[in-house]
């Protein structure tokens, strides 16, 4: 399992970099899909088949499709780099490095014995996930429906021709 993990972990990181670095929006979106799918494979390797599949269905199959369609409809080709933000260039990269270093240090400090063990989840099947959602997290689950309702309402308000 370990080599597969490394392959997809590296793939996820590379694709994530590509999301940021690509100049064509469609390529960025496609790279993001690769990130999501690689993460799904990592879930799969951890024995969480249900989560892996759900990840693909929801993120790659539903949300990103809408992203890609919107980008296509806007016909956004290559974006022109803006030279305005010097601050971002001189401050952004070093801050990013500091943050990265901090995180790496923290991980290293927290897990000194860097063993990659496949911490198999106790049970990540649909039954267990369902029990968690509808018992322990029933309130967040229900409140999420309010959130989605607000989002729908907002979309209607902003986009409908005549209210």
């Amino acid at each position, binding site marked *: 399992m370990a080599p597969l993990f490394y392959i997809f972990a590296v793939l996820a990181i590379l694709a994530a970099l590509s999301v940021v670095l690509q100049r064509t929006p469609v390529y960025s979106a496609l790279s993001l*899909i690769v990130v999501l799918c690689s993460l799904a494979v990592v879930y799969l390797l951890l024995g969480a088949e*249900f989560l892996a599949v759900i990840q693909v269905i929801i993120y790659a199959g539903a949300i990103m*499709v809408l992203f*890609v*369609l919107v980008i*296509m409809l806007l016909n956004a080709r290559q974006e022109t780099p803006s030279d305005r933000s010097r601050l971002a260039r001189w401050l952004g990269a070093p801050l990013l490095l500091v943050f990265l270093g901090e995180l790496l240090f923290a991980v290293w400090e927290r897990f000194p014995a860097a063993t990659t063990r496949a911490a198999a989840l106790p049970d990540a099947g649909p039954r267990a996930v369902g029990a968690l959602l509808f018992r322990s997290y029933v309130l967040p689950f229900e409140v999420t429906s309010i959130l989605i309702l607000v989002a729908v309402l907002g979309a209607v308000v902003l986009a409908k021709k005549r209210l």
Partner: protein
Amino acid sequence: MATGSNMPLLLLAILAKVGVVLLVLLTTIAYAVWLERKVVARIQSRWGPYLVGPHGLLQPVADALKIFFKEDIVPTEVDRVVYCLAPFLAFSLALLSISVIPFGESVTIGGATIHFQITDLNVGLLFVFAVTSLGVYGVALAGWSSNSKYSLLGGLRSSAQMISYELSLGLGVVGVVMLAGSLSLREIVEHQSGLWNVFVQPVGFLIYFTAAVAETNRVPFDLPEGESELVGGFHTEYSSFKFAMFFMAEYANIVTVSCLATLLFFGGWLGPVFGPPLLRALLPVFWFCLKVFCFLFLYIWIRGTLPRFRYDQLMAFGWKFLLPLGLLNVLVTSLVLAWRST
């Protein structure tokens, strides 16, 4: 599942299985095309392909040869990477979902258990849906990358259609999943040993089948290729081999949804089993193939007889009729199940 005592042999067995399944699938696709031409011809009082081989049986071979030796034209203004990626994506995703389809019961011959299935994922059904949901990209990206308005409009239409009907497709099978209490295709089939799901979930089946026809962009939902308005749909700019991949992907998808319909609603490989051990082992596979064949025939029959929807009718039908009906079906099923369990 065999324990990893004999790793290379196991790997070889898996590869062999993949090879066999692929071969069968590709042949099925080729002859599904032949069958379609033949049946549609009969419906329209024609003969259909008749010249190449007896009853035109070698026509698929001829078609394949023709299409491989055609010139592969890539228009100059396309987005080259995505343009080439799209057909591969469509085709490989269409093939991928077949990997979790069980074709028959597991049999034990000489101490070795043979599963008629490439891999038994315990969320097999969801896996198929995941792969299907990714299938939209092939279409959408092909439409976008061609850099032509007909392709783009065709791509947008079919992706909108696929996204819309994917929901109903999923809702149609929720009832089955609730009955079986499992997402594993094998367990869902085994659960039907008493009574096929089509009799318990008739509404679910109708929803599933209607949505499946729409999901595969077939008549009467084949608006993406409405010739009179969109030239050829998302693959207008594709030719030769790349076009063939889209074509094969479409038929592979038809095979997949037919397999799924068989497994979910018609008891999969279940059927009368008798005779000597070898026959016992092979009969389930035969029943499965027979049922899938019936579905393929149904598909072609529909294509030969029904007219095409208008686009707004299609969307209204999906969102305002099929989806609410699916939700209602889920609600009723869960209520009945809850009432029974108390």
